């Protein structure tokens, strides 16, 4: 990680591409023991990586808990001013906020371990309930935007790398930087202004129209995704309804990540194309296009995937903003709602859950990267 990789989204330090141990790598044991060690190495790596999730989550939970509690308790924040001091004290006592902070903390940890992230104040819902009712919407949005991210990132990244420093590269780089420089919510507002308000082609906000929602309720066991349900109902009008609502939010979020992906792909492909094994394949008559699509793409993808794993956090932040912009009723939208009503139990719960999701997603990405890379050893 010695170099900063701007392509990893500004500011994200690039993961070093596999370092060796302390100068001991030269000795090569006989093949049989080596292959055995490699198999073990992969499992051990995955196990270690999996175990690392827990301290990560623990640190996050602890940090967020104490940070949120520095300023006071959620009841005072939510209801302070509207109740008399006596009423407030009573409510605080009932909720246990007058106990020592350590006791509260341990209690909280215990609750989380049991999957209880608390209950909201404003509408008295279990935070986990919010996850199950709104999480699917967020997931659906993220998946749509991922499709756009890959559609933009891989082909355009290759195009830019192959035409390095020529006009297609210049155009694509400016595009990628613009995609990064435009906040998702501003891009969202622009898209809304043009395609919904001025042209009237697409709906302004929401996941589905009111009539569509009614139709949806006919489904007995709904899947998390509206699109799947619409397909199951077999109604083309409903499918169109769902898709037309999804296009703009997915585009806004996908553009941001697509730009990041494009730049990552470009930088890493350029770096890989300079490697000697590419020159070596070239010296055996392999064509330039195959060098890019086969020989360079796979090695270049390994660091890209790792960095994209770190970008999951960025993507979730983007999803929160996109949902707010398009009133897409997912976790991010609810988060904004609860923040406005100063319901910090809800905010804390949602933030924690998002953090856990990020930690798990990072693990999955690392596993994918490890499976692609035959050199993984630990």
């Amino acid at each position, binding site marked *: 990680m010695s170099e900063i990789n701007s392509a990893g989204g500004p500011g994200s330090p690039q993961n070093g591409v596999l370092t060796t141990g302390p100068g*001991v790598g030269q000795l090569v044991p006989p*093949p049989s023991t080596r292959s055995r060690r490699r198999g073990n190495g992969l499992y051990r790596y995955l196990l270690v990586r999996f175990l690392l999730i827990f301290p990560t989550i623990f640190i996050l939970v602890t940090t967020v808990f104490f940070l949120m509690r520095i300023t006071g308790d959620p009841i005072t924040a939510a209801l302070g001013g509207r109740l008399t001091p006596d009423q407030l004290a009573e409510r605080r006592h009932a909720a246990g906020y007058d106990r020592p902070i350590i006791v509260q903390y341990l209690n909280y940890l215990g609750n989380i371990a049991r999957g209880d992230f608390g209950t909201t104040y404003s509408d008295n819902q279990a935070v986990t309930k919010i996850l199950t009712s709104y999480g699917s919407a967020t997931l659906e949005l993220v998946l749509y935007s991922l499709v756009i991210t890959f559609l933009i990132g891989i082909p355009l990244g290759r195009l830019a790398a192959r035409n390095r420093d020529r006009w297609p590269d210049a155009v694509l780089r400016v595009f990628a930087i613009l995609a990064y420089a435009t906040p998702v919510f501003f891009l969202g507002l622009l898209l809304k202004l043009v395609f919904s308000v001025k042209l009237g082609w697409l709906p302004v906000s929401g996941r589905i129209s009111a009539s569509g929602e009614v139709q949806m309720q006919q489904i007995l066991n709904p899947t998390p995704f509206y699109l799947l349900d619409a397909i199951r109902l077999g109604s083309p009008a409903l499918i169109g309804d769902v898709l037309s609502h999804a296009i703009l939010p997915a585009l806004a979020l996908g553009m941001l990540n697509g730009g990041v992906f494009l730049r990552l792909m470009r930088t890493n492909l350029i770096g890989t194309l300079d490697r000697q*094994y590419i020159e070596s394949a070239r*010296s055996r*008559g392999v064509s330039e296009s195959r060098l890019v699509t086969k020989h360079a793409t796979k090695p270049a993808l390994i660091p890209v995937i790792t960095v994209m794993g770190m970008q999951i956090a960025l993507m979730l932040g983007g999803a929160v903003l996109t949902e707010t912009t398009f009133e897409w009723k997912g976790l991010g939208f609810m988060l904004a709602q609860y923040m406005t009503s100063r319901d910090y139990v809800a905010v804390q719960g949602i933030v924690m859950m998002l953090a856990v999701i990020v930690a798990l997603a990072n693990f999955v990405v690392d596993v994918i990267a490890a499976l692609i890379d035959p*050199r993984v050893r630990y």
Partner: protein
Amino acid sequence: MSSSAVHRFGGGEPLLEIKDLGVSFATDHGDVDAVRGVSLFVDPGEILAIVGESGSGKTVTARSVLGLLPETATESGAVVLNGRDVVQMSATQLRRVRGADVAMIFQEPSSALNPVYPVWWQLGEGLRAHNPKLSTKQLKERAVEALREVGIPDPQNRINRYPHEFSGGQKQRIMIAMALALGTKLIVADEPTTALDVTVQAEILQLLRDVRDRFGTSIILITHNMGVVADLADSVAVMHDGVIVERKFAKELFAHPEDDYTKKLLGAVPRVGAHSASAGLSDAARQELAGHEAIVEARGLEVTYPGRLGTPPFRAVRGIDFTIRAGEVFGLVGESGSGKTTTGRAIVGLEEVTGGSLKVFGYEMRHLRERTFKPLRKDIGFVFQDPATSFDPQLTIGQCIAEPLEVHEPRSSAADRRRRVRDLLSAVQLPVDYANRFPHELSGGQRQRVSLARALVMRPKLLIADEPTSALDVSVQATVLELFRQLQAEFGFACLFISHDLAVIDMLAHRIGVLYHGELVEVGDGAQVLGNPQHPYTKRLLASLPVPDPVEQAVRREEFRRVDEELAGRD
């Protein structure tokens, strides 16, 4: 230049004819001519060595045969391969020629193989590029065949493995297999053994010779190593500054070099027994040295690197005994991974001693406390291997040399320090005004002199030199080694000289220790160890070192084969 037409290896049409080739590169400071008017022939079955130091244009010349020059290069002249001019070819034509008519082997086999694809796939890519109809099954069969040809054991299974699962020598064999897979008649080998240990080098050279003998393949061998030339080449072209200064059959060139540069190059090659430091000692001097106090004393010295999470710890040094006495140069020789560098680093506390005992000036390094050891540090100097990275790029040469003074004599005056820096610069034969320059403004050889100056500024009683010349060109190496000899004689410090090169060790060391896999297999008087090696590994190491003389090398080659078989018999 014109002599190239005279020496023909075989009759008939040459396989390759380079006519008045010129290559220039566009750079920040205008065009640079890397190759100027080079003409060469390569006949079928001929092994031509192009030899020269860095910047001589040898690599550029060789790459032009495959049309593998960067975009900034402009070529003139012609490179005629099988009757067709490579310089004029279109991209598609070049692609058809590469691999089929001419193949290339690279210096670093590790970086020339794609790390994320199995070996058969990479080999198959070359085959498929010239014959897209081949099925995966056919590709695998051809890959097995190709690996068998170059002596990789168990090819059926190993074609499915990834490059990192092979040793360096095996990787180079795979590269050769890939070059051969398409039945090419010409192989361009760019420093094919430079990155390898000397014993592995001998094996790869043997394989290349076999390839020529079995398939009649011509080879262009790019190298800086005169011993390799003597071992393998039929004919030699010596390049200097982009021009061929001499072109002859190998035997002739080594016997009767004509050009001054060739003579100088040959003269600079260190040879075992040629300037042996220990043989030059009188018996009395040897006796006297043996009576000096011991400065470094290792008894059962062990250095173990802890393993990471589940991997076993690595024992780099496994219980070795040796002594370095005042005024004595102790040479430690071994291949990569033998633990020689680790030993040197342990003496100055850069590695932790994990077992046995290591006493430096009587101080037990096993219980190292920086505070108590610091006063002794002024008596120890260290010269690092890589001259490019051993100086803080932000400091001037003068500041670098003066750093030990600032640390150990904080009260000395600035004028005094400047004077001592000047003295040292003159001692290492550099102009005194170099004190104001920055490290990057110096060449590698100059930096290594500065490195010596820094190590000697406190007049140490002990100097550790870790491969100080292995990154240098041979002619530069010769001058630095000579300087080292003079300084050692003048200052009289004891020295641990670490090197992988037996000839270099022989030039400097009074006594020699041979390290193999962390164990000291042989220690003794220099001339004795090299003149009459006892341990089979020492024998093998010595026999694998090619000497710059084709006739003698042919004999030694047989010797190496014999030692090898003897060793194989023992196992």
